[in-house]
C-alpha cells in the first residue's frame, strides 16, 4: 500500500486539517505516514495545500510531483493538480466551486458539490471533510472509523462541538458517492 495524497484549496478551506485527519487515520492503522503543508507568509486567504503519504514502507520524500490522489477545493487547485495526478489515480473535485469538467480520461474523477452538502449540514466550512468522505467511498485508503477516531482524539478540547457535525460531513460525502446524490 502506498498512496500520495494532495489536498489543495484556498487558505481557510481546511485542506491542511483534512490532510491531518487522513494522516492520523493512517497512523492508527499502522501505516508509515507523513504530512507536509505548503507554508507561506500569508496567514489567511492564500492558497494552501498539503501532501499526505500513507505507505507500508518508510516514507522517503514527503513531497511528490504526481500524487496518486488529489482533492481540489477550488478552481486554482483544479487547474494546478488535474494535470499532475498519476495515471490511474483519483481526482476528487469540489464542484460547488469548480465549474469546469475534468479533461483527463485516464484517472477516476469524483465530482461532489461539497460546499452545498456542507451548507445543508449547517456549516460550509465542513466541505473539506465531505470531500474526504467522498474519497474514502471511492477508495478506502483508511477506514472511516479511523478518521472519526482522529476527530475525537485530535480536535482540541475547546472545539469539541465540531466533532459530531464533522462525522456527519464525512458520512454525507461517502453517501453522496455511494448513492450518486
Amino acid at each position, binding site marked *: 500500500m502506498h498512496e500520495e495524497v494532495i489536498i489543495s484549496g484556498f487558505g481557510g478551506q481546511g485542506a491542511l486539517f483534512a490532510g491531518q485527519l487522513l*494522516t492520523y487515520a493512517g*497512523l492508527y492503522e499502522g501505516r508509515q*505516514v507523513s504530512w507536509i503543508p505548503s507554508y507561506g507568509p500569508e496567514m489567511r486567504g492564500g492558497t494552501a495545500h498539503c501532501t499526505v503519504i500513507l505507505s507500508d514502507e518508510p516514507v522517503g520524500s514527503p513531497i511528490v510531483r504526481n500524487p496518486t490522489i488529489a482533492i481540489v477545493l477550488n478552481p486554482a487547485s483544479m487547474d494546478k493538480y488535474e494535470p499532475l495526478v498519476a495515471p490511474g489515480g483519483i481526482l476528487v473535485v469540489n464542484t460547488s466551486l469548480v465549474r469546469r469538467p475534468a479533461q483527463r480520461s485516464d484517472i477516476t474523477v469524483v465530482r461532489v458539490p461539497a460546499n452545498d452538502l456542507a451548507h445543508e449540514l449547517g456549516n460550509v466550512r465542513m466541505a473539506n471533510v465531505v470531500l474526504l468522505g467522498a474519497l474514502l467511498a471511492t477508495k478506502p485508503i483508511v477506514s472511516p472509523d479511523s478518521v472519526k477516531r482522529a476527530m475525537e482524539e485530535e480536535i482540541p478540547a475547546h472545539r469539541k462541538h465540531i466533532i459530531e457535525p464533522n462525522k456527519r460531513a464525512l458520512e454525507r460525502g461517502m453517501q453522496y458517492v455511494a448513492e450518486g446524490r
Partner: protein
Amino acid sequence: MAKVLMKGNEAIAEAAIRAGCEAYFGYPITPQSEVLEYMSARMPELGRAFVQAESELGAVNMVYGAACTGARVMTTTSSPGFSLMQEGLSYIACSEVPAVAVNVMRGGPGLGNIQPSQADYFQMTKGGGHGDYSPIVLAPSTVQEAVDLVILAFDLADKYRQPVYIIADGMLGQMMEPVELPELKPPQRPERPWALTGAKGRPRNIITSLQLDPPTLEKVNLRLQETYKRIRENEQRYEEYMTDDADLLVVAYGTAARIVKTAIVKARRDGLTAGLFRPITVNPYPYDALRRAAEKAKRLLVVELSAGQMLEDVRLAVMDKRPIHFFGKMGGVVPMPEDVVDAMKKAMAEA
C-alpha cells in the same frame, strides 16, 4: 510508548524537554517559530525557564549565561537569526560550556525566504563565528531522527563541553511524522565543578574567553583542538542505503537525503543501480566511511539544497578517485524525486 504525530518543530521542542533542557531562550523567526511557541507553553508549566528574547543576540547570550551556571539549555532559530548568534556561539565554544542550538534553515542569502534550504552548511560546520572552533553538527532526516538527535545533542554538549548544533530546514520543521519520545523526567545535572553557582565551599569559578597572554590563549586553543580530535575519533555517524551494489553513490543529508531515497527506488526501477551515503554528523564529517563507500561505486552525485557546500567535504573525502557530480537547488526550491532521478541519469551518462 505509543507513537504520536508531531510537527518537526514541536518534536524538537518536546525532545529537548525530555532531554532535561532546563532553559530555553529564543526569538520568533519563520519557519521555526513553533519551537518558541511550544516552549512558551511547556517550559513554565514544568517550572523551567523560558524567555522570548529581544533578538537572537539576546537569546544566544542568555543561553551563554544559563550554560555558565551548568544548566542544560537550548535555543532555536532560522538562518538570518543563526547569523546573529555567531558571536555568542564563538564565546560558548571558547568558554567550554555546553549548549544546544537548532537552525531550521531557510532560503538565503539576506532575508531570502522562508522555504527549506541547506545553504548554511558552511556557516554551521566550519565554525561560523570568529576563531578556531568546530561545533558538532547533527543532521536529522526525519522527525523521529530529529527527536533522537536533539537528545544526543544534549549528551554530546555535556560530554565535550562544546556547542552542538542541529542542522534542520523548513521542511523538517513544518512536516508531521509519527514519533516516539522518551519518558518525561525531572532534569538531572551531572557534576559540574566548573559552573557558576556561587562559590560556596569551593574556590570561586571564573568563566572567560579572554586570554590576553598569547601562550595562554594558545593553550586554550590546543585544548579545544584536542577535544575536536576526540570528537572526530568517537562521534562520526552516517547511514548507508542500498550502497552494496550501487554504481552511482549519491551523497546527501537531511531533507535532501530523504528525497534522494525515493529517487533511488525510482531509478532502480529504470535499471540505474544507485545508493545513498547519508552523513548524520556533518561535523565531524565521516570522511573515511565515505571514502570506503565511494570505492565501491563508479561515480558520485552530491545532492544539496544549496549551490554545493557539502560538495567540498565529499571532494576532501574522495579526492579525484571517482568522478563527482553535483545537483543542487537554491533559494528555497526543493527538487522532486523525479528531478533527482534525472540528475542521476545525467551523471551516469556523462563521460
